[in-house]
């Protein structure tokens, strides 16, 4: 088996005085779709931000692609960032640029390709994310919630990352849109061979698309495995989370299929 894409050992993070993660260990397999679950405030997004090199850990190590992130040189870190894409919860599109320019921006910054090639690649990314060509010239303030998510996904894919971080991708989407987005993520994972790390609350996403779920609580990974194994977990917090009504409904529909 290939080495894990991400290896986290004894991670400690703090926000102000509050310790968010305490001695957290986690391996994320390459090519897998790993979901990070946990109740609100358990530090899922903080973990994602730490893995995405946005938040330095207080202690412990994170290895991305077999390299320890805390000792990276400036240029190595820049290279590392080129190999990961992050889609933020609220999109975080640049409000002063059109959707097309948002997607083209990282390409123009990181490559020496001429504009015509960059825009061709950007158009491909928009299509990959399922956006109509008409959306390319719109500004972020003119987009609907679903389009914003897709535009943000297209931008996170701009540099053909190997690692894709998604922060609550289906939050705020209608059920049809959420299902379509889930399918899109799986499709992209298979097509581009991505390693996807997903923070989500969406029971359907957890049951249907996640290859593996890491359940965060009390500052560490309480349990990991598929939704089915977690539902039978010995940890009461995990069982409680997966035994909730909404979870069970998602499970029932998943079992039927």
């Amino acid at each position, binding site marked *: 088996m290939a080495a894990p894409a991400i290896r986290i050992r004894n991670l400690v993070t703090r926000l102000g005085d509050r310790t968010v993660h305490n001695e957290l260990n986690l391996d994320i397999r390459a090519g897998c779709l790993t979901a990070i679950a946990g109740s609100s405030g358990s530090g899922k997004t903080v973990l994602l931000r730490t893995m995405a090199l946005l938040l330095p850990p207080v202690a412990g190590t994170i290895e991305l692609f*077999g390299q320890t992130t805390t000792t990276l040189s400036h240029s190595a870190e820049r290279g590392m960032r080129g190999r990961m894409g992050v889609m933020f919860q609220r999109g975080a599109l640049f409000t002063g640029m059109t959707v097309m320019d948002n997607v083209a921006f990282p390409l123009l910054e990181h490559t020496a390709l001429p504009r015509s090639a960059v825009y*061709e690649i950007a158009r491909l*990314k928009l299509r990959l994310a399922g956006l109509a060509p008409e959306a390319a010239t719109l500004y972020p303030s003119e987009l609907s919630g679903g389009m914003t998510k897709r535009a943000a996904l297209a931008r996170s894919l701009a540099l053909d990352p190997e690692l894709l971080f998604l922060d609550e991708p289906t939050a705020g989407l209608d059920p049809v849109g959420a299902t379509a987005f889930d399918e899109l993520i799986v499709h992209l994972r298979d097509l581009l061979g991505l390693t996807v790390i997903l923070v989500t609350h969406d029971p359907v996403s957890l049951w249907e698309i996640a290859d593996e779920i890491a359940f965060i609580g009390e500052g560490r990974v309480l349990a990991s495995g598929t939704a089915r194994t977690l539902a039978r977990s010995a940890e009461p917090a995990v069982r409680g989370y997966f035994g909730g009504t909404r979870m069970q409904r998602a499970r029932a529909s998943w079992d039927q299929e």
Partner: protein
Amino acid sequence: MRVIRETPATTEPEPRLRWRVAQRRVVCSGDWSVARLAAVERQIRRNVPRTSGEWRINLDEISTLDTAGAVMVQWLCRRLRAAGATVRLEDVSAERNAVLKLAASELGTAPPRPRSNPLEQLGRKITSGCLGITEYLAFIGRLTADSLPRMLRPHRLRWHEIAVELERAGVMAIPIIGLLAFLIGIVMAYQSGDILQTYGANVFLVDLLGVIILREMGPLMTSVIVAGRTGASYTAQIGTMQLTEEIDALRTMGITPFEMLVLPKFLALLIALPLLTVWADAMGLLGGMLVSSLLYGLSFEVFLQRLPTVVPPNMLWVGIAKAPVFAALIASIGCYQGFRVRHSADEVGRYTTISVVQGIFWVIVADAVFSILLFSWLGL
């Protein structure tokens, strides 16, 4: 499925194209991933031969092919076709084929946004400039309409917010305004004292400094600093609140943003600016006195004794009376520009700049009007 690379990306060979013109074959090799494609793109653009017949493209030696690389392969195909050849990709794996197909399919191009011609742009600029004044007046109107009911019942005013704004705009500006007024006082005394000394008219320094500082420099200097400090912060705050929909949230609660946000700022500045002006007057005179006593032989006693006899109290009151007018201009322009922010973070910056520039501009215009009005008609 692509395996995550253990080693840094740079150890892979450079992406390359080799032309086998005799065999009508192109062999692609190396790492065709987005960061390293620029060289390949140049080759495709320049080196495609004029040709015909069937060309074969071999991708077997490509170690990594991402979507950008696939776009480049398709560019190569398109160029060859445009040069008159037919193109065949030599046995490609299923996974690569999926990506290549994706890049090949017609990428719908978006219709470009209609560009306006220069004449139209000029027209728009003029009309928006003229409409800007009416919009500003409408803003003042709504502010008045929303504020008057509150003003008539002072116990319902948001005194807490007013106090907070008063601290930010007034108390926290005391050091910078004091320091700058003191320095201006020093400079003016130094420059004019030199001229007066040649006529032996040192003592008139008191008259000069008194009139200029109390009547003009005190209120004007203070207003300019406040426009840069407080007017800008008003615009930035309200503009950002527009972007984050906080203003809309207030509206849905039945709270008008004018009454909640603008009125406290407006009233606070109306109180703060005259007080700051008095402070600036005092510090300016102190600076002037210091120079007069050190360089021009006018002791503090002489200065202070002469000051009330040659500078009528009207001068002080005229200066202070101008301050609330300037405050009203700065606060209303600052808030108005904030509300003009609609869509983007760029606009926050743009309107903050406009707010400061217009604030200072209208303060100086108002000051000129005051000078003419008061001096020529009322004889003050």
